[in-house]
């Protein structure tokens, strides 16, 4: 006789052996005992929870000749033949491979024959969700009023695929996922019966991996037996499932809590070397962190017990802040998803760990929140020196050159409206407005620091003109007036920048970056020759006031540079 897998060998044969579905077995037992059995049942629930088994036990109970209470005896002829699957009165139909209307017509024809031995003819229609809609409809009338000797039991994992008309004709029983504790109990029974020694930790692992399906659990136990012989250790189960020990998960969660990216990446390398499946690790990690989160929210919950000892779980959970933990769970869950579709899952995981360790690199709300806090912190330290400088310095007189620069562009219409506006805006911000000079708080250094950012924004918003500004530098700042330097000779750039529209935009841009109302003037700066960089531009200030060259050739030369070449007379002749 060939070997039978544990889940087939240990298929329950009585109601009492069916585990974790008391709400169903009790109802069925009472119905059988009272002789009030229905004519159509629907068993639904996830895989490995006992639907087919319950159907078979019910069939036996109904046809058994020596029933004790509601339980079948498993020793009379009827029970034996049903157990072997050769009973004529119990028909087990695979609806997934016989799903057409013809098969159902066949069933309707034969259902009228009375049973040969037992009291009932029982049809077990498994995987019933795969019937075609015509087949379902062909079944309706029979299902509603079958012959008195017929009972139909439908079993499926996907009850939502059945038409309402089918559902309303059946007594429906929902099979629950089996709790880890129940799975462990059953595993112990099976292990004892098959003379297998299994470690407690190994049982816990199997229960966790089975995820509520007893068949999965027994499959894993079977593999364990093939792997480790009669003595099954937690290590065996780990290597079968490709999972990692709980302490690796604990270590990783510690690194994540402490933000130690380097250590986390090293642990990943370690796992890779051991040949662990990183995708599985990501899933485990998500599950582990979720258990931590649940433990944190509701310390009494038992979510953590399948992972590790409760005390250790609580200690791990205490390392995290609640939002931080939620964020990390979120990152890991998404990572597991992403890894499925990636050719380089290792990189996806590493990236996610870096993200999880540094809240600042993420994009979700939680990490934005963390970034915002950091910015606020910085802002506090920034504003203080600003106030100080304002107190120390007297109200400055406007720089001569700024006036000069403003001369060439509509100075009278621009200036008066800006002043009151500026006041209004700044009054809301600081009391310092009373003095009429809040402008002092931005120094040239600060502007220089942020200059890259200004140019970046410019490039994003006004790509066509941005190249003109690429070589500019901020020269002088005072009272929210800024002098921007163009390199010597870049007349075109300067003139473009000086156009009203562009200038307005640039002022507004500065306002957005540094706050307040800005005025801008443009001028040239000399590169190295001017001894001190600060002074160079000031001396060079009068440059725009140079008289514009009169001749067209000189004008071209001024705008584009270059030199004049005299063409030879000979060429002149040949050319023209």
């Amino acid at each position: 006789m060939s070997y039978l897998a544990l889940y087939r060998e240990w298929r329950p044969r009585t109601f009492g052996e069916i585990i974790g579905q008391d709400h169903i077995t009790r109802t069925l037992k009472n119905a059988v005992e009272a002789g009030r059995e229905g004519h159509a049942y629907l068993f639904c629930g996830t895989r490995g929870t006992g639907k087919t088994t319950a159907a078979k036990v019910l069939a036996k109970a109904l046809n058994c000749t020596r029933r004790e209470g509601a339980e079948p005896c498993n020793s009379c002829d009827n029970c034996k033949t049903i157990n072997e699957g050769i009973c004529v009165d119990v028909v087990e139909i695979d609806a997934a491979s016989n799903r057409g209307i013809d098969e159902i017509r066949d069933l309707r024809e034969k259902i009228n024959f009375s049973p040969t031995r037992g009291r009932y003819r029982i049809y077990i229609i498994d995987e019933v969700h795969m019937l075609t809609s015509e087949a379902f409809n062909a079944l309706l009338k029979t299902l509603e009023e079958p012959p008195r000797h017929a009972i139909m039991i439908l079993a499926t994992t996907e009850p939502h695929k059945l038409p309402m008309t089918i559902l309303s004709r059946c007594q429906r029983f929902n099979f629950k996922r089996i709790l880890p504790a129940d799975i462990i109990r059953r595993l112990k029974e099976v292990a004892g019966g098959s003379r297998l020694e299994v470690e407690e930790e190994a049982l816990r692992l199997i229960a966790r991996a089975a995820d509520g399906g007893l068949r999965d659990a027994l499959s894993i136990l079977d593999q364990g037996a093939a792997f480790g012989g009669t003595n099954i250790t937690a290590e065996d189960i780990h290597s079968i499932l490709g999972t990692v020990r709980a302490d690796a998960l604990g270590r990783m969660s510690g690194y994540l809590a402490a933000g130690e990216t380097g250590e986390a990446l090293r642990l990943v390398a370690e796992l890779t070397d051991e040949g662990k499946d990183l995708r599985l690790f990501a899933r485990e990690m998500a599950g582990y962190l979720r258990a931590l989160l649940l433990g944190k929210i509701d310390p009494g919950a038992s979510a953590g017990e399948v992972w590790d000892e409760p005390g250790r779980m609580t200690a791990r959970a205490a390392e995290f802040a609640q939002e931080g933990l939620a964020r990390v769970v979120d990152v890991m869950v998404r990572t597991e998803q992403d890894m499925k579709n990636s050719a380089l899952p290792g990189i996806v995981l590493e990236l996610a760990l870096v993200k999880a360790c540094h809240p600042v690199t993420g994009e979700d709300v939680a990490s934005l929140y963390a970034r915002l806090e950091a910015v606020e912190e910085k802002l506090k330290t920034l504003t203080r020196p600003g106030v100080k400088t304002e107190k120390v310095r007297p109200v400055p007189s406007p720089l001569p050159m700024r006036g000069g620069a403003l001369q060439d562009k509509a100075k009278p219409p621009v200036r008066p409206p800006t002043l009151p506006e500026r006041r209004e805006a700044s009054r809301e911000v600081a009391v310092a407005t009373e003095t009429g000079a809040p402008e002092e708080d931005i120094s040239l250094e600060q502007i220089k620091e942020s200059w890259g950012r200004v140019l970046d924004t410019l490039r994003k918003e006004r790509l066509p003109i941005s190249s003109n500004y690429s070589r500019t530098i901020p020269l002088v700042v005072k009272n929210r007036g800024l002098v921007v330097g163009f390199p010597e000779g870049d007349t075109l750039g300067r003139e473009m920048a000086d156009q009203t529209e562009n200038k307005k935009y640039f002022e507004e841009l500065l306002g957005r970056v540094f706050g307040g109302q800005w005025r801008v003037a443009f001028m040239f700066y000399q590169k190295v020759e001017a001894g001190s960089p600060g002074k160079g531009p000031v001396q060079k200030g009068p440059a725009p006031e140079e008289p514009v060259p009169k001749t067209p050739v000189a004008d071209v030369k001024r705008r584009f540079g270059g030199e004049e070449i005299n063409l030879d007379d000979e060429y002149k002749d040949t050319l023209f």
Partner: protein
Amino acid sequence: MRLLKEITGHKQIVRSLLNTVLWGRVAHAYLFAGPAGVGKETTALAFARALLCACPVDGDACGMCRECRQVEGRNHPDLYFVQPSGSSIKIDQIRGVLRVAPYRPYQGGRKIFIVRQSDLMTRDAANCLLKTLEEPPASTVFILLSGRPQNLLSTILSRCQQVFFKSLPVSDLIQGLIDWHGLGEEDARHAAVLSGGSMGRALVCASGSQQEERREAHNLAGQLKECGPCEALEMAGKTSGNKVKALSVLDMLTCWYRDLLVYRETGEAELLFNLDCVDIVGREAGCYDTARLVEIIKEIGATKHKLEANANTRLAFEALFLHLIR
């Protein structure tokens, strides 16, 4: 054809399969799951041969008897293969399996069905197999192979003994490359590290052209850091000429920036993929900050996604490179 004990890596899996045959605990359904190119089918064939062999030695096939030679020639009458016809495994193919399953084996003690890429079964086909997979006729063994077990129905999964093939550890890969493919130690090492644990990919990486491409990708990354938009667009044009090559360039760029990130965070050379240019990695890693590297890798991933969804290669590359030059 290899024996079970000659399989590269997967020592534990091999051990448990050998025990299975030796102790007569052969289950009726197995699922061999794991990334492409790690040896699922090789193992499945070796296992099938051990199961069919007339005089197995210590759970492994003898390799001499008629059965073994027939399996090697792929003409054993009790060894069936099911594979996608077109883009999926259809219900009719599975019905064909169900039709032959109840018969006795012709000559060996067992009938073996190997289902390649079983995740490509249509929903109907998979459901059709369920009942038979749970309680097949005596002496029938199903071996399902799948690179994406997550796409299989959970009802299928729970009926099988699931054997997870993992990426091969670097040391096993190196050994395998040297023993079976005649590579030198140095080459084998580079290929193994770059392959991400797949023997198939390692063999591609070991071929000469791949090395060249890798160097080009690194140069590209270096240039992108410094050049302006015009050069970037020009490079995008050059790189995007061939879509297959473009995709592999993206992979290499990902590896490269990943190395920079890892080096930045840990400062350890052993963790790198590109072991032959540690000094360059060290130099380059200083030029970026962590957030930027994360952003870059994500950007490259997004571009790859777009290309796989049939975006215009050149446009996608231009967009990517313009991102990278900032």
